């Protein structure tokens, strides 16, 4: 599904290398987690994959089902089935959540040569998806993320994921700013979307999110590279011992 080879990325503004030869492959139907200390390049990876400005790829490749991601615009990557759940979802006053979602869905469908969804069908679709995430009609009517609590913003991200049905979902520290109940709700939403046709890359600092979203594979990232890969037990190890031992081991 997602195949990253020898990816080198630097910040355009500062000429500062962030990713230094990252290799990662995520198979269809799997949930991979990336953990790592602050500044290891986790969020940069999510931004580079989704096409945010400000980063320069100096070497390496990233493909989604054989399609080169790095040469595409962010919206093209989205239509190819890539989705990034933001760590800090953006507030957009004056644009209704429903309008936003429908615009996004129809833009993707159009890009893929599919028919646009009618207003009626769309409403039905969103209501059904929103219900399981405990998102009420009032929240759907409000402007995008405006006045939403931390938990509501993250649930809204998962709702977008549920409506857009991407094949490759990246969750960038989705657990940040969430209390235990909110995290459970978000995790349930993600788990409901797990399927043999869809893969997840879950970026997190802490093991606790992985109690709720059980990963198949755990990677440890440090200094712009994947330094260790293992099963769910690797996350527990980090939780108990911190990153110091792992970093020392690699050095």
């Amino acid at each position, binding site marked *: 599904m997602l195949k990253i080879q020898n990816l080198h990325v630097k910040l355009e503004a500062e000429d500062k290398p962030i990713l230094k030869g990252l290799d990662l492959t995520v198979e269809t139907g799997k949930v991979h987690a990336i953990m790592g200390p602050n500044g290891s390049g986790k969020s940069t990876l999510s931004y580079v994959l989704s096409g945010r400005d400000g980063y320069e790829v100096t070497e390496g490749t990233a493909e989604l089902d054989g399609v080169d991601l790095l040469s595409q615009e962010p919206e093209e990557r989205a239509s190819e089935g890539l989705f990034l759940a933001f760590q800090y979802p953006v507030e957009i006053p004056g644009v209704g959540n429903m309008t936003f979602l429908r615009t996004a869905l*129809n833009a993707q469908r159009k890009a893929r040569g599919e028919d646009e969804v009618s207003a009626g069908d769309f409403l039905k679709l969103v209501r059904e998806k929103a219900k399981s995430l405990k998102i009420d009609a009032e929240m759907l009517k409000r402007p995008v993320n405006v006045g939403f609590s931390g938990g509501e913003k993250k649930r809204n991200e998962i709702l977008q994921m549920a409506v857009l049905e991407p094949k490759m979902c990246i969750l960038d520290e989705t657990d940040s700013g969430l209390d235990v109940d909110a995290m459970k709700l978000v995790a349930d939403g993600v788990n409901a979307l797990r399927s043999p046709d869809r893969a997840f890359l879950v970026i997190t600092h802490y093991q606790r999110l992985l109690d709720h979203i059980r990963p198949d594979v755990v990677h440890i990232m440090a200094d712009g590279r994947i330094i260790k890969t293992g099963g769910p037990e690797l996350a527990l190890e980090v939780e108990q011992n911190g990153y110091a031992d792992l970093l020392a081991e690699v050095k």
Partner: protein
Amino acid sequence: MATEAKVLAPLDIRLARAPAGGFTSAARAAAHGRLVAMGLPGRRDEYWRYTDPAELNAPAAVTAENPMPEAPLSVSGALQIRFDGGVAAPLPQSPEGLDLALLSAADTQDIHWAGALFGVLEGEGQSPVKRPLAALNTVLATEGLLVRAGSGSHAIHVDYSIGSMGSDTYLHHCIRVGEGADLTLIESGRAGARSNILIEVDLAPGARFHHVRAQGRDADRRTVTHIFARIGAGASFKSFTFGENGRLTRNEAILDIRGDHAVAHVAGVALGNGAAVPVLHDDTVFITHGAVGCESRQVFKKVLRNGATGVFQGKILVKPGAQKTDGYQISQSLLLDEDSQFLAKPELEIYADDVKCSHGSTTGAIDETALFYLRSRGVEKDRATALLVLSFLADAIAEIEDPDLADQIVARLEDWLGLGAAE
């Protein structure tokens, strides 16, 4: 000054031709006196520093090119009134509680109530800031609408068209809304190649006045407007203006809050694309709080690209004793490129100690983070930009009370942004 002589000399001739004896000729003569004393505006005047009035002062209008006609706003249930190149079509029958007449017939029909308004609010509004183009309007305008809403709720739609491509239009409307009455005034379109439109509005205690206008989308357009309003106790004045492009637009609102617990809102959205011709859009507002417990609100937003210039000059004056005043003012511009500019001069002058007044002004570009957020969901860059423009304009659009009119304005916005039909 050569231009001044050229403009002012023919005025004497026109004045001499005007019918004598009626209230309009006396008002015109008084305005002429004011105008001669003030002189025409120039760049050296404090309130014309950012906007060059030369083309508004010029003796004759420049012929407009490439007109872009636009369907008028659609307002169901409103009385339709048309001015073509400044010439009025026959007026419709007035319903009960509403008197309608034309300025051109004012003297012969002895419409005495208009005599207390015509040129009066304009004259009072010449201090502390002089407004020579308003006095010029009172001198020259021989046509306009006289509306008196005595009771009940009424809506009037004034639909302008340009007439000839060289039309130089002066219209002067007088509006009086009686105690407890409610009047909605919609204005659509462009009244001339060059137009100078003045509205005097007198709101009795408890009267309500809503005003929405769309000034057209032509690039080659020169427009100056003034609204002078006198607002009585507990009355509500709300005005929203939408303008697209235009070589030179100056919209002035001079609102005088006289009675306690009155409300005055004035808002505007201007979209300027300087690709075809240079665009300058100027909103100049002066709100005087002269009573207790009143609220005023100014919300102006401009979206500028391809070298367009936006100007905002907004003042709140709180007179001694106007306690519990709540004055709010925001002016913001969104610059879609580095060639465009926004010049803002917010002013507060407060002589009462128990008031709440705030003002803010910002100039910015599209938020890159928000743009990326939308694009990461699959929305194409142009459409994402357009959504963010709509987002930027949202609180100005919210000043339009009628949802149907707000939808029509949004549709025009989307057109300007190149989005075509709304989703």
